[in-house]
């Protein structure tokens, strides 16, 4: 039983990561109808940038002779992500307005490889252990009292993800930008007619998903270091989206957790019988099953053909 709990909890940790990446996808998809393939690379890029702002061997240190304190580094990285968002709007989206979704999708694939390349050139491709002072190791409290082995970092990640979701929910439901974002997601023309500037909204949405990517990058980097495989979790986010629905924020969260836990449990308990490596395909299997029985996802809006 204890072992099962530990498996579930470590699945949740992986799930939180998937959720965070999926969340970035959902935000952009809702506001601009674009499936942003580069979301995983955003997380990588944000992680790399943060590392270089705060580490002793980062190039900020090389340039100025000191590294930024963590909180400043995070702010600076956020600045970088806003600039990336602005550039994406300025150089890509603006010129592709009204194009087919597939063309926009292709452009984000291009963006992904471009950013990966830039990241490689600027920051190098070796694994970078990100240490922003998050607690590491097992929680003594849970170990002593319940004999349960739980990484402190996993607890922190879960709490951070929860806070992030609450903040985003308030942002979308209560603020004027949130209302403008929902307006744009609903009807571009109508949004324009009340004076909402699509360009501003796009920059904001891409910045917010850059922020979400930064959080994902921090969590992932603290656990296994910043490395290029991080951009691959973008692929895992795809089944998460199919599960949760492309337009649902809660769907992204729940979907991510289900897949995270599902694949860990499957790996541990069914792995030995099929020769392991279930983790590699479980998410896609689950997504396939979902596509057959509930294509709009758990929380997605029902797809009704307009006539």
């Amino acid at each position: 039983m204890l072992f099962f709990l530990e498996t579930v909890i470590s699945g949740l940790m992986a799930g939180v990561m998937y959720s965070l990446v999926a969340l970035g996808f959902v935000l952009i998809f809702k506001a601009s109808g674009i499936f942003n393939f580069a979301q995983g690379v955003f997380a990588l890029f944000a992680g790399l940038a943060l590392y270089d702002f705060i580490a002793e061997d980062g190039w900020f240190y090389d340039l100025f002779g000191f590294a930024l304190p963590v909180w400043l580094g995070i702010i600076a990285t956020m600045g970088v992500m806003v600039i990336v968002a602005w550039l994406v709007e300025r150089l890509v989206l603006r010129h592709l307005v009204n194009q087919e979704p597939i063309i926009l999708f292709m452009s984000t694939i291009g963006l992904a490889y471009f950013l990966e390349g830039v990241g490689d050139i600027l920051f190098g491709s070796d694994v970078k252990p990100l240490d922003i002072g998050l607690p590491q190791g097992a929680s003594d409290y849970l170990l002593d009292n319940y004999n349960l082995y739980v990484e402190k970092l996993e607890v922190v990640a879960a709490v951070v993800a929860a806070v992030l979701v609450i903040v985003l929910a308030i942002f979308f439901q209560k603020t004027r930008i949130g209302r403008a974002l929902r307006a744009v997601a609903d009807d571009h023309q109508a949004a324009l007619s009340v004076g909402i500037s699509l360009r501003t909204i796009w920059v904001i949405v891409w910045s917010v998903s850059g922020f979400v990517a930064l959080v994902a990058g921090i969590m992932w980097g603290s656990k296994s270091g910043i490395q290029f495989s991080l951009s691959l979790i973008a692929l895992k986010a795809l089944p998460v989206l199919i599960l949760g629905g492309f337009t649902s924020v809660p769907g992204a969260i729940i979907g991510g957790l289900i897949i995270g836990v599902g694949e860990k449990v499957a790996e541990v308990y069914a792995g030995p019988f099929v020769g392991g490596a279930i983790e590699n395909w479980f998410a896609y299997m689950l997504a396939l099953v979902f596509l057959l029985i509930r294509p709009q996802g758990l929380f997605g809006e029902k797809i009704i053909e307009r006539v």
Partner: protein
Amino acid sequence: MTYERTIGDTILAVDQISLSFGGVKALSDISFSVREHEVFAIIGPNGAGKSSMLNCINGFYHPQEGTITFKGKTRRQVRPSEAARDGIARTFQNIALFSGMSTLDNIMTGRNTKMNKGLFWQAIRVGPAEKEEMAHRAVVEKVIDFLEIEAIRKTAVGTLPYGLQKRVELGRALAAEPDLLLLDEPMAGMNLEEKQDMCRFILDVNDEFGTTIVLIEHDMGVVMDISDRVVVLDYGKKLAEGTPDEVRTNQDVIDAYLGVSHGEDE
């Protein structure tokens, strides 16, 4: 009509506008002007270019030639957000509402141009923005009152019947307190009672707030009843301009309407 208004100077001047899509000439060399506090109708058969004209005025379409002067500012091309900020609000031929949002939130979006605090500012400081929000809420409540839609304030507009959706859309435009209101077939697809309600609202808006109104309408009875002046388009060209009576007796107009199947009169 017994309401009393003083028609003022020209507020909107459309000057030699031409617009084409590839080979299709949607508008050729159109000029007319609309005076302050006027109810001005654009009529014409299907495909005449009426909606395209509105789309040029609020910046959705960018005409290749000609200029549009609004409140003294002359431009060929304007961005929709600029037009909105200058005081132009509109409704659409096919309802364009934010279907997932409530009536209240939909109408609230109409306040967008009146909100001073920049978007980023609003995200950072909740305090003053909150206060501003309350002031805007008051305007929105007045609009809701005016359009008699208190009962559906919290209803998601996607679930409302067609006639009410049209009314909410008008509400969203009114919330902007526009100087110029563009209405693209505000009564299309409505039953008689709904049409009468809509007519009354349009006249009341014009009367009480002095809003200048440019509307497209197929129902001749309605057009003749509520508009001060009319421009007639056909195949992207201007056929006539004048008071309803002048237009009604214009031979070109009569020919156009008899010659073209005019079955959309419901």
